[in-house]
């Protein structure tokens, strides 16, 4: 490998399953504590201290689960697709494992987002489900996750499985901007985004600060769940290598 390294050092270190196993072992407790703390604070703040909405009353509080879950389901998909692309281009085993670890978590979070949305939709809109662009594209995201999980487990050889799922994930990536802009491009029943990076949120700070805490909490939770799955996957695939044997026999 005499060629010029054009990515930062940590990128190449990530290629080593052993290095990854060790670094995630160190990061895990930090994220676990952060996740528990932010989710606990966020939930209590959101349920007990945030004011009710002037139109929806208390039923709007489901936003504190629904919005973080929806954001995370999309971020998780992007991470999975990027990891898949890195796996395809650099043939990096760890990237394949990251992609594989993301899929079931993303699927669960997407289900959570759809379920909380339906529960909120019934009293607010008057319907559990409407086939509008936002809801439908979110459902497609769930189906993409399920398809990726199915495809990955249908192929015996780990490398072939990772390649096929990475291609599927990359094709499905087009759905992410569709979800995001569906409410702007078409008439939908779903309201436009309350939060944008460029404008002030259409919500007072005593409502959005706990929401922000919940979003951070969801991301930390995702990091924990992902690292746990990744470590499992590393041990499983590297079970024949000497460092894993040393680790087990200890």
């Amino acid at each position, binding site marked *: 490998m005499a*060629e010029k390294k*054009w990515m930062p050092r940590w990128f190449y270190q990530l290629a080593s399953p052993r290095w990854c196993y060790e670094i995630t072992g160190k990061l895990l407790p930090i994220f676990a504590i952060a996740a528990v703390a932010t989710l606990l604070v966020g939930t209590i703040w959101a349920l007990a201290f945030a*004011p*009710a*909405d*002037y*139109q*929806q009353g208390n039923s*709007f509080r489901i*936003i504190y689960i629904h919005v973080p879950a929806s954001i995370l389901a999309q971020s998780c998909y992007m991470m999975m697709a990027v990891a898949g*692309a890195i796996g*395809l*281009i*650099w043939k990096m085993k760890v990237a394949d494992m990251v992609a594989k670890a993301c899929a079931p978590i993303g699927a669960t979070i997407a289900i959570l987002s759809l379920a909380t949305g339906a529960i909120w939709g019934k*009293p*607010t*809109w*008057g*319907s559990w489900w*409407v*086939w*509008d*662009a936002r809801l439908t594209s979110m459902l497609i995201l769930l189906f993409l996750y399920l398809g990726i999980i199915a495809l990955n487990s249908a192929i015996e050889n780990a490398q072939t499985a990772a390649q096929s799922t990475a*291609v599927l994930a*990359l*094709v*499905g*990536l*087009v*759905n992410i901007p*569709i979800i995001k802009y569906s409410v702007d*491009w*078409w*008439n*939908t*029943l779903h*309201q*436009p*985004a*309350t939060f944008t990076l460029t404008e002030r949120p*259409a*919500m*007072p700070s*005593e*409502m959005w600060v706990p929401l922000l805490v919940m979003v951070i909490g969801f991301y930390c939770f995702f990091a924990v769940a992902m690292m746990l799955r990744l470590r499992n996957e590393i041990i499983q695939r590297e079970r024949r290598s000497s460092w894993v044997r040393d680790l087990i026999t200890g």
Partner: protein
Amino acid sequence: MNPKRKQRLIIVLFIVFGAATAVGLSMYALNQNINLFYSPTDIVDNKAPEGTRIRAGGMVVEGSVIRDTQSLNVMFDMTDYANSVTVSFTGILPDLFREGQGIVAQGAMNSDGVFEAVEVLAKHDENYMPPEVAEALEKAGKMPDQMRAKGAE
């Protein structure tokens, strides 16, 4: 970057942009079908199919709601601030239904030019605020127009 990786990178980019172009073009072609509802202007301009079941969306005009005292029938006007359509509905309205609220109704135009709805859904906008703030804004007459109008888009 070695040539093999470069080649694979190009393939990956090709997959992403190829899929995006294909989906983008089909979305563009299907544009009208993806819209959840027709606006009152579409209906007045005869852009919406007549006689078949469609969805129509707009704001409930202030002061236009007439409730029948004998039945669950409700008549109201729905507007997009350019044109309006009269809607007739028999049934239970969602909690958020009120004058000035955005709604989406499913039904068909009858021969009298009245939209006969079989289902009325309330459309919520992206603005949230505590009741005290809303009250204070309303009292001061400073409720921003966009808070009422957003749903009609």
